[in-house]
Every structure is written in C-alpha cells, then in structure tokens.
C-alpha cells in the first residue's frame, strides 16, 4: 500500500509547502477577496431588497454563497499551473514520462495540491472574518451564518472533497491540452469564463432565469461551487444531498476517464521542446 500511495503523498506535501511560502501575496489576496465579497454582497442585497415575489434563495443563503465563494476561490479551476506550463515549454516534462509512476495519477496528485493549498491559506481567515468578526463589528446581517444543520455540514464537507476532485480533473484537462497548444494563453481565458460563470461565482446559479435552469443543473461546473454552497446553507434540502453528491461524482469519473484518454493520445504524439 505505502509503495503505491507514498510517492503521491510526497508530491502533494512538497508542493503544499512551496505554496505556503508566499505569505505577503496571500495577505494581498485576502484583502482583495474581502473587498470583492463586500461589493458583491451590497449589490446582491440591494437587488434583493427590491424583490416583490418570493425568490429561489433567501438573503442569508445568498450571503453564505458569496462568502464561501470568496473563501474557496482558489480552488476553482480557472487557470493552469505556471510551473507546469514552463515544464511543457522547456521540455522537462519528458522527465515525468520516465518516472516509474502512473502518469495521470502523478499529475493528479500534483494538480490537487496546486488547487487545494491556496484556498486553505486564504479560506480559513476568510471564514473566521465573515463568521466571527463581522457580527462583532455589528454587521451581523452580512455575516456568514453557520451551516443549516449537522447533516448539511456533513454534506458540505463531502461535496467539498468532490469539488476538489472535480476542480483537479478540469485543471488536468487544461494541463494535458498544453501538450498540443504549448502556450495555452487563449485556453486560460476561455477556462476562466466557463468556470466563473457556470460555477455560480459571478451570479448564484438559482438566480439565473428559470428557462436556463435545466441546462445549468446538468452541467459539471456547478459541482465546483453551487452544489457545496447550497448544501451548506440548506438551500439544497437534506433529502437531496445524496443525489447531488452522486451527480458530482459521476462528472468526476467522466472527466478523469476523458483526461486519461486524451493523455494517452497526447503522450503518443508529443513533441518534446528544447535542446
């Protein structure tokens, strides 16, 4: 057991320690996201105040959606790992092919660490701030409320693990596509747009027009943000949690299989750069 899992644990923890070195950048990122969260909240609350009909979400649920979105922003697969891009560009990616490891699993571990390290550094202070400090400052209406129930919290944690896997699978697809495109600048932009719109980061998905809901409910990106945040706030009731988790899991499996397939082709026709 330890001989198969060991290398991946080592890769994940090494990557994690590297990312945790940049504390000043993390602080700047924290302040930026705090500001974004505050502006988004004030905009959504102002719209909400004008609403006359019952809405698909209540205000505390919207507030939780926004703060969780800011806390977990780094986990969304909106960019590629700059280190990985450099590796493809200068040809050192060839070394990875020589390692006595399953290539997809090895890259999955590396990418998982890339996706998960930043959110822990930014996310924990963000949750503390929005849950503890805001009520103390007399801004209780804008605070992140605790999870709707114990079941909702358990479901949230489970969906978060699946969201991390989904984010990794999507990022890895982008990484593998670098084997063809090398620079990947254009793809980065398209990925950002797809992910931020369809995960619910720009506008919470339930607030989109009703005629768009069937499409929004079927696409994979909602497993990244919309599903976990709504389970947390109770907007997705406990009875539906299992179904939503299954939905995300199916998409993880589909994207992992797709990634393996494309990687197989990519390695066969890859041209190593450099000299």
């Amino acid at each position, binding site marked *: 057991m330890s001989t198969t899992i060991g290398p991946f644990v080592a890769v994940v923890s090494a990557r994690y320690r590297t990312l945790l070195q940049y504390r*000043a950048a993390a602080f700047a990122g924290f302040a930026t996201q705090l500001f974004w969260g505050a502006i988004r909240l004030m905009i959504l609350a102002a719209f909400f105040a004008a609403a006359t009909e019952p809405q698909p979400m209540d205000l505390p649920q919207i507030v939780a959606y926004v703060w969780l979105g800011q806390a977990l922003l780094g986990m969304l697969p909106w960019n590629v790992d700059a280190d990985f891009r450099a590796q493809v560009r200068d040809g050192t990616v060839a070394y990875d092919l020589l390692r006595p490891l399953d290539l997809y699993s090895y890259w999955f571990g590396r990418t998982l660490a890339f996706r998960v390290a930043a959110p822990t550094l930014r996310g924990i202070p963000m949750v503390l701030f929005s849950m503890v400090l805001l009520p103390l400052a007399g801004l209780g209406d804008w605070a992140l409320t605790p999870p709707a129930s114990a079941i909702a919290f358990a479901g949230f944690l489970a969906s978060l693990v699946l969201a991390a896997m989904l984010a990794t699978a999507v990022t890895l697809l982008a990484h593998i596509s670098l084997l063809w495109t090398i620079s990947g600048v*254009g793809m980065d*932009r398209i990925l950002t747009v797809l992910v931020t719109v369809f995960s619910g980061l*720009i506008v919470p998905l339930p607030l*989109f027009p009703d005629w768009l809901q069937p499409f929004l409910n079927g696409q994979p990106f909602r497993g990244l943000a919309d599903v976990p945040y709504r389970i947390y706030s109770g907007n997705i009731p406990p009875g539906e949690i299992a179904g939503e988790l299954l939905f995300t899991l199916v998409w993880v499996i589909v994207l992992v299989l797709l990634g393996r397939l494309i990687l197989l082709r990519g390695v066969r026709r890859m041209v190593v750069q450099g000299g």
Partner: protein
Amino acid sequence: MNAAALLLRYLAISLRGQLQYRASFLMAALGNLLNCLIELAGIWVLFDRFGNLSGWSFAEVAFFCGTVNATYAIGELLATGFDQFGTLYVKTGDFDRLLLRPRSTVLQLAGHELSLRRLGRLLPGIVIVVVAWAALDLPLEGDRVGLLAFAMAGGVAFFFALMVLQATMCFWTTESLELMNILTYGGVETASYPLPIYHRLFRRFFTFVVPLACIGYFPIVAVLGVDDPLGTSRMFQVAAPLAGFAFLGVAIGVWQLGVRRYTSTGS
C-alpha cells in the same frame, strides 16, 4: 522634439511592434471583450430576476457600466508602462536608463506601450454607452455630451493616477502588489452600479479618499438628468470630475518623492 511629438513617436513604435504578433493581440483583445460582456450579462441576469435596483433601470446601470469600462480602458491604455513598472523597470534595474535620459520619467513611462488589447474593453464600453443612451431616450444635447466627455477625461486622469501610485509602491516593495487591484478592477466593478446601494463607509471612501464616484456616479447622474437620491446639487455633480485631475496631481507628487528615494537593484 517637444514632449507631445515624442510621446506620439513612442506610441507609434509600440503599435508597429504589436502588429507583428496579430494572433496574440486578437486573442487577448477577445478575452477582454468577453469579460466586459459577461459583466453586463451578470447585471442583466439580476435585473431579469429582481425587476429593478432600488429604482434604477437596467439601461441606467448599463450606462454606468459602459462609461466606467470605457474610461478605465483608456486610462490603462495610456499607463501600461506604470502598470508593469515593478517587473520591467525596478526588478531589472532598467529604471536607471530612464533617469539618465533628458526627459521626464512620467513621459517616458506613458510612452512605454500603447497596449492594443485594451481595445477589447474600450469598444464594448462605448457601444454599451451608445445603446443605453438611445434606450433611455436622452436628448443628444451639447452640454450632456460635453459633461460625459469631461467626466471621462477626469476618469482617465483618475485611473492613470492609480497606476502611477501602484508603480510608486514598487520603489518600496520592488514587486507590484495585487493590493492595488482592489482600486482598479474593484473600482470598475464598484462604479458599474449606482453609489447609493453601497454602505455609507464605502460611499465616503470612494468620494473623499479615492474619488471614484466623482468621475463616475455624480457626473453621470447629471448626464442622465435624474435626481440624486443622496441629495447632491447639480453644480457639485458637474464640477466633480475635477477631483480626478487633482488626484492625478497628488499621484505625480508622490511619484516624484518615490523617484528621489529610488536605489537601483544594480543587476
């Protein structure tokens, strides 16, 4: 050669350089265009769901959004040299070369690059303003158009000043900090919506400390010809964009303090 002619010469060279890489320019411009349209689509989704925003209509908010995007794009277009100052000039020590030339550093940095991909934000911004203007049935009068142009000029000065301040921080930190994004990108987001929806502290901050509302919300209220729910007078709204120019004056003063403090990295 006088300063203006020199600046034009710099910019012409930069344009010719960028046209050598047409595909990469088009891709980046397209990305900017997409971001701008998504922002507008996000506003539309919220209007579709909630009907109105404390009395403001979609066309009015689109007017705010279009104006600030166009204004920011012009400011960014002219200030690329300041935007990338830390990485390109301080870290490398290349700022020494600028100091040795018999021209002001502000002029040389303004001429660093006329970044064409910013057109991806400028063009949709202008189109949104024009369409919103027509949708609102605003009469096409000289003083309205003139006030909008004055507000945008003040806005360009304002965003240029933010880039200058961001570059000035590099004299102390060497690298550019993500922190200024709060005021640049965050400023565009903030000014895309009417000021009264924000908390009192935010309103004061964006009026008196960083005069974003003076180049966005206040003059635009006068252009739209509506009454300000915050109760400001027309006279104030019309004069407000002056704050953008004053802000630029302060920023250049701070810049010169920073230049005096500069020590080369010497590598």
